[in-house]
């Protein structure tokens, strides 16, 4: 096993990886940009390295700087987390070339799966169903428009190098096609440095269901069951659960086998995820493979009892996967909510500011993954996800109730968050029934407003108590004298220092 691992990431995922390493007796090296100098991942690590400028390209995305520092501190391996360099084949290659183990698959597999067109072709060869679409290398607008019309509407425009909903557009009618292609290309260029897109048939009311994979360097490949990730806004997941309410033992068996076949077909190693789209008739289609740890991995850990990060480390260090497919059992039900600094009543706009208070809910089977704390400043440099909240219970209903309890006790003051929104989604009758698709938020929460009900009485009472406790007598006099014609002058209960 490695003696020292550098974690090329920040936030909750860096914290989670550092803890796993420390439990295994591995020394950890955090990296950080100037604005993250006091961030929790830096505080908890055994060593830390300042990468300087907070602009991602200068720090968390700076391959040369990270490799140079890893060598300097003699880190034997680098864990990339998710996002940033996690799916960058050049980074995996640079690690390899410097004699550092990249904790993930080979650069070749990352590159292949990063090209959504080639990925689909390869996976289709392994007899895994894929969605009809245009994956050509002709990327001029007229060709894309022509191919788009062939597929018909609605259709999807997606960045070839994409992920996380960036560079993705749904086109409902022909007249929108050109603008959507252009805007998707622009976003793709900015996010991935590559403006290539592909088109595919748009499946109405689909579910997003993915399978977790673990594969070692000795030919063992297993899956750890599904995660239902249909609850999305802006094409990004906000609530994930497992098991999926739509899953049957038969479908699970089929999709699990397809996932293992897909991973095997590309020679996959380490932890990865096969994303499928499932339509209303339980047909499933391969969408893409995420060649890294997923944000939502905790729900799989909760229901299988397996620590995915520790297995990533073991597999990367060359150990054999001693877990066999039949050893993996799915028990109970788990839910994850992503806590975002964003305003759900205003288009999920990110919110920036200093966290005046963070106080996490605590209880049996409540897991908090967080990379922020009281006094942390949420800047616009990075993703607005503050934390993840994961719960598990004996069944889905209890899991939902536990999550609602936990969200009701989740305190984040200083930025606008999606906590109240998440509660409303979980408590929606259709969510409780498990009737969810990737359109759920749009269908039921299009015009949601947190504040339409006004200030509750309890809040008014709390404010009154607080201000009564904190108001000085002089201040009261000032208030009183401010306006001699104030109606308060005539109120009978006025009394002071009696």
């Amino acid at each position: 096993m490695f003696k020292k691992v550098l974690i090329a990431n920040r936030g909750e995922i860096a914290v989670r990886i550092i803890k796993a390493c420390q439990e295994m007796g591995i020394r950890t090296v955090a990296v950080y940009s100037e604005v993250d100098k006091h961030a929790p991942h830096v505080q908890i690590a055994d060593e830390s390295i300042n990468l300087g400028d907070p602009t991602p390209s200068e720090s968390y995305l700076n391959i040369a700087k990270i490799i140079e520092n890893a060598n300097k501190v003699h880190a034997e391996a680098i864990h990339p987390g998710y996002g940033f360099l996690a799916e960058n084949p050049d980074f995996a290659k640079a690690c390899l070339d410097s004699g550092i183990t990249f904790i993930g698959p080979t650069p070749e597999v990352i590159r292949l799966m990063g090209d959504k067109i080639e990925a689909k072709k390869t996976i289709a060869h392994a007899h895994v169903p894929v969605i009809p679409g245009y994956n050509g290398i002709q990327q001029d607008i007229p060709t894309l428009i022509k191919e788009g019309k062939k597929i018909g509407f609605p259709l999807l425009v997606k960045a070839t190098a994409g992920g996380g909903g960036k560079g993705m557009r749904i086109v409902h009618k022909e007249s929108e096609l050109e603008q959507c292609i252009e805007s998707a290309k622009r976003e793709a260029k900015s996010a991935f440095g590559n403006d290539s897109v592909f088109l595919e048939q748009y499946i109405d009311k689909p579910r997003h269901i993915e399978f977790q994979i673990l594969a070692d360097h000795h030919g063992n490949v297993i899956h750890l069951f599904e995660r239902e990730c249909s609850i999305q806004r802006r094409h990004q997941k906000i609530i994930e659960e497992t098991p999926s309410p739509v899953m049957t033992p038969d479908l699970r068996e089929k999709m699990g086998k397809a996932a293992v076949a897909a991973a095997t077909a590309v020679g996959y190693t380490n932890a990865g995820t096969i994303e499928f789209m499932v339509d209303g008739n339980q047909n499933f289609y391969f969408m893409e493979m995420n060649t890294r740890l997923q944000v939502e991995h905790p729900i799989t850990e909760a229901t299988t009892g397996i620590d995915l990060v520790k297995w990533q480390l073991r597999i990367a260090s060359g150990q054999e996967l001693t877990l066999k497919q039949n050893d993996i059992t799915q028990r109970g039900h788990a839910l994850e909510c992503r806590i975002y600094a964003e305003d759900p009543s205003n288009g999920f706009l990110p919110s920036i500011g200093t966290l005046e208070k963070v106080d996490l809910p605590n209880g049996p089977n409540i897991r908090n993954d967080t990379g922020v704390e009281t006094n942390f400043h949420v800047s616009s440099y990075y993703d607005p996800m503050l934390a993840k909240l994961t719960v598990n219970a004996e069944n889905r209903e209890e899991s939902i109730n536990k999550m609602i309890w936990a969200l009701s006790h989740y305190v984040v003051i200083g930025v606008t968050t999606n906590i109240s929104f998440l509660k409303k989604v979980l408590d929606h009758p259709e969510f409780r029934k498990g009737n969810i698709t990737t359109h759920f938020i749009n269908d039921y929460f299009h015009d949601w407003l947190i504040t339409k009900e006004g200030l509750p009485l309890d809040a008014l009472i709390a404010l009154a108590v607080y201000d009564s406790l904190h108001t000085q007598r002089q201040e009261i006099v000032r208030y009183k004298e401010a306006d001699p014609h104030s109606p308060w002058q005539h109120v009978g209960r006025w009394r002071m220092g009696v």
Partner: protein
Amino acid sequence: MADGGLTVFINYEHNTHVYNITVERRDNQFFITYDNNEYTVVASELKPGHLSIQLGDRIIKSIITQGEEDKFVFIDGSIFKVKRIELTGRKKTEKREGDLHSPISGTVVSCKVKEGSLIKKDDVILIIEAMKMEYLIRAPYDGVVKKTYFKEKDQIEIGQLTAEIQKQEE
């Protein structure tokens, strides 16, 4: 125990609505009047800002923090931003000119209009990128672009005016 009654009159503003409250304190008892109802509660501040308030047989748990201008009230998973205002000289609620102010701090990707040009409602004026997402500033009405304040690659801060548009009379 020797502490006498202490009455405070307060106005809170929340989402353009104003709430008038009277609160009288006697030791740890509070008599709160709001909307012609009187509520008697027993309360204590357990640690700074953490209140435990007994109203009848119910315990209200709340956390209050004081920002620069606003108070944040945490109740049962929701947070309300409230401003304490004086009854006299109260400022009118400032009505934002909606969509022409930047909703986010970020980088301008492109400005899609020129000064003097005619635009239609919902035409894109500015594209801003922040946290790896694109935000569009659209025209709130038909009109003429009088002024644009940003160009490609400019840094823009939340709340800054992006453009001025002379509204076309119907």
